[in-house]
């Protein structure tokens, strides 16, 4: 019994350390290929089933994202003015907004291929950029880069840059504007309303 338990624990430890040693570029590649594989086989997603693609992203992609950090970056210097519950609420709403809007982009998938740029990392680095490129027939390749940081043993994405446009910092001026107009609570209210209106659009689209 004891022996079995130790073997079990040991196996668990091995698996955990294998996980920890996973480099960020390998992580990005695995998740990307995993998700593309599912989309390639799923006719519902290809024909624009938003809820299904959101579920997929929720399960496969989000565990590798650090939304707290993303939100802090998007809010910028006002972040420190927010209380912990406000920060939590901002993070939740911003996450909902990003997932909803950019998951939709995946339903437009048509035979794109992702190329992984050579990656090297110095020992002990905890903040890296993984560069990829999306190739699509008949148009220019699109640069798609991920910023990751190491938190404890795991690498987490905190920014995604498409063709040089950071999805996170692109919100900074808009968020700043909302905070100037209505404070942190004003920004939260705007995000809540935005998500609600997207939700009702989605519901309408499903009914059709």
């Amino acid at each position, binding site marked *: 019994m004891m022996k079995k338990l130790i073997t079990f624990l040991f196996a668990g430890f091995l698996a955990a350390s294998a996980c920890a040693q996973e480099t960020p570029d390998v992580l990005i590649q695995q998740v990307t290929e995993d998700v593309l594989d599912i989309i390639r086989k799923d006719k519902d997603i290809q024909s624009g089933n938003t809820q299904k693609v959101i579920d997929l992203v929720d399960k496969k992609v989000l565990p590798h994202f650090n939304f707290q950090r993303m939100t802090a970056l998007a809010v910028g210097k006002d972040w420190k003015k927010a209380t912990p519950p406000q920060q939590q609420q901002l993070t939740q709403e911003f996450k909902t907004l990003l997932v909803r809007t950019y998951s939709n982009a995946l339903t437009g998938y048509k035979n794109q291929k992702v190329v992984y740029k050579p990656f090297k990392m110095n020992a002990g680095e905890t903040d890296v950029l993984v560069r990829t490129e999306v190739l699509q027939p008949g148009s220019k390749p699109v640069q798609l880069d991920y910023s990751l940081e190491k938190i404890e043993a795991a690498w987490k994405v905190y920014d995604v840059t498409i063709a040089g446009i950071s999805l996170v910092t692109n919100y900074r001026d808009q968020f700043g*504007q909302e905070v100037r107009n209505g404070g942190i609570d004003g920004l939260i209210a705007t995000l809540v309303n935005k998500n609600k209106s997207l939700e009702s659009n989605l519901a309408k689209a499903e009914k059709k």
Partner: protein
Amino acid sequence: MTGMLGALKSGACRGLLAGGFLALALSGPVMAEGNPRDPYEGFNRAMFSANEVVDQYAAKPVAQVYDKLTPLPVKAGVGNFFGNVGDLWIGVNSALQGKFSDAGVDIGRLLINSTIGIFGLFDVASELGLEKHEEDFGQSMAVWGAGDGGYLFWPIIGPRTARDTAGWFVDSYADPVWRVRPIPVRNSLVALRFVDIRASLLPADKVVEEAALDKYAYIRDAYLQRRRNQIYDGRPPRLDD
């Protein structure tokens, strides 16, 4: 949405632009809330709203019809054709920025695609590993050290900084498509290129509509980030948080 990614080179409206300059000169810098990156925000927002109307009722519907009716190989051919025409000027700008091996690639692309690629309809050079670059005169001026001069939003051609507006005039002057004669053929080519570019931006429309809290600011900031990325050839130095 027209010209969101700053790729528009149409210039269907130089007169309108000149009018815009006049209005700008009259209105002067609007230093209201004081976004230092957007000194002409009042003017820009007015132009943006006007452009949204033009886009909604003219540019976008036409692009949608084109997108729907044109088979993919034809669309690819159209995109490749104008891409090939642009490679000469891209090569000149690579050279102006001191990137002579890039310039060699650009000219190599032009030679290969114009011949083996049948007048540029097929991008054979990319298949052979000669990567396409994105260069224009605005980027060359930036590399020489010119500041961006403030952000502007123009009808039809969309977002441009002051520097890149000047660059756009030089680009248009050097653009072979504008020199095609007779005039009706030239106009058709210019219009086709405009529609092709607008159609290529259609998938981005929905994302922007959904993602933006303020569409004007979203497009402005995306444009400025994208330009910075182009000027540094895809590897801009990191900004501090």
